[in-house]
Each structure stands twice: as structure tokens, then as C-alpha cells.
């Protein structure tokens, strides 16, 4: 579990038009917390990938739904918690993609979760009260993604 403190929240709806607003919110929150730009960039990418996956796959039925994001300072860095009420899905269960050796065999897609795994220091999923809750944390004291 990633510890959380009182954080900054945003509610967006399940539309790709909302991603830029989410991104601005994320950068504002990162700046307010003194998060360096390179860390904020990683959060930016992972948030975009995670929310894009939710928008694309979580809701088999059309209609407006809400996705909530919460940015929290942690003792080591910053964490992002993403909640959606779509169908149960743990993105962290998706197998590591095999990175292609040639353009011919290069598959399109599946990279979003790969980025989250590689760039974030910790990531965690749980299903709670009808919500998918994905949280990830990136620490400021050591570079992430060097695994």
C-alpha cells in the first residue's frame, strides 16, 4: 500500500478531451509540491497512459463516467491514485511486452503499462467498493526506471 496524505484531487470524465486538463492539473500540483520536472514528466506520461487505458477499455457501455485522480506527497516523493468505476481490471496483471527485434514484428500497443512499471518506483492495484484503484509512486531521491 502506498501511504496517502491529504492530497489534491481532480475529477474528469471518460473523454480524451479531458487529458490535457488532467495534465495541467498534474503539473500545477507537481510544481506546488516542488517536484522536479523530470519526475513530473514521468508522472505525466504514466497518468496519461493509465487514464487512456481506462477511457478505452473500462466502459463497455457508452455514457459519461467519472475518473478521479488524487496527487499526494509521500515521505519519499509523490503518488498518484486513479479511481474508476469501470469493469474490474488490474493493468499490472498485463504481462510484460516482448520488445520487438524488428519493425516487421513490432506490435502496436501495450506500452502504457510497461511505462508505468518501468518509470514508477512502486505501483499497486486494488478493487474496492466497485472501483478500480490504481496507485503509483515515484520517489525523488533516486532515479526511477533504471531497473
Amino acid at each position, binding site marked *: 500500500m502506498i501511504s496517502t496524505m491529504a492530497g489534491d484531487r481532480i475529477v474528469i470524465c471518460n473523454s480524451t478531451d479531458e487529458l490535457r486538463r488532467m495534465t495541467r492539473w498534474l503539473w500545477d500540483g507537481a510544481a506546488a509540491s516542488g517536484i522536479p520536472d523530470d519526475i513530473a514528466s514521468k508522472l505525466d*506520461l504514466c497518468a496519461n497512459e493509465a487514464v487512456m487505458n481506462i477511457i478505452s477499455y473500462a466502459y463497455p457501455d457508452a455514457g459519461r463516467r467519472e475518473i478521479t485522480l488524487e496527487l499526494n506527497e509521500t515521505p519519499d516523493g509523490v503518488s498518484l491514485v486513479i479511481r474508476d468505476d469501470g469493469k474490474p481490471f488490474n493493468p499490472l496483471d498485463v504481462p510484460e511486452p516482448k520488445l520487438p527485434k524488428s519493425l516487421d514484428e513490432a506490435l502496436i500497443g501495450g506500452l502504457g503499462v*510497461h*511505462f508505468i512499471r518501468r518509470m514508477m518506483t512502486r505501483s499497486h492495484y486494488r478493487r474496492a467498493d466497485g472501483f478500480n484503484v490504481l496507485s503509483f509512486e515515484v520517489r525523488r531521491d533516486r532515479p526511477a526506471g533504471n531497473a
Partner: protein
Amino acid sequence: MQIDSERLDGGVLKIALAGRMDVQGTQEIDLKFTGYTANQQAVIVDMSAVEFLASIGIRTLLLAAKAISRRGGKVVIFNPDSNVTSVLEMAGIDTLIPICRSLDEACSAVAA
């Protein structure tokens, strides 16, 4: 996003991308990018002014590169910034589409 193309010597086409290559940005340039790269044999994708790259942008780059490669052509990426470079490396794209740091290097890499 912005997209511009420039014809260089030796039949090389340089396509310059600028802005945020997220869902919205990629949608803005996707059709033009596919159009510009159609029927080209030597393409340099100048990413020096791309400030953000998400998987959807990688998809657009890969689809074009696959098509060019199937025709026996060559494509390279020119001068992405450090964030974009690390995303390309993490996705393994740098091993499929070479990253060049100078224009001379890029031109020689795509030359027949």
C-alpha cells in the same frame, strides 16, 4: 501539434514535429504524417521540438516506419530531447528506428 515537411538533397524528406505528442496532439498530425510519409523512401523525423511522447504517438511513428520499411525505404528519428529519448528507449523503438543526433548522420543513415 505542428507538422512541417522539407525536401532535402538526395530525395530525403525531413518531417518536423512540434508540440505534445499525446492523444490530442497525435490526432492533430496523424493524417498529415501518414500522408507525408506515403511513397517516401528516405524519411527523417525531426523530433527536436516534441516535448512529450505517449504510446499513441509511438504507434503513429511505428506504423509509418513499418510502411516505409516494407517498401525498402529507411526512416530515422532526429534529435529527440532527453525525456522523449528515454520513452523511445524504454519502448525499444530506438533499436527499430535509429536515433540520429546530427542532420548529416541522419541523411547518411537514410540515403540509399
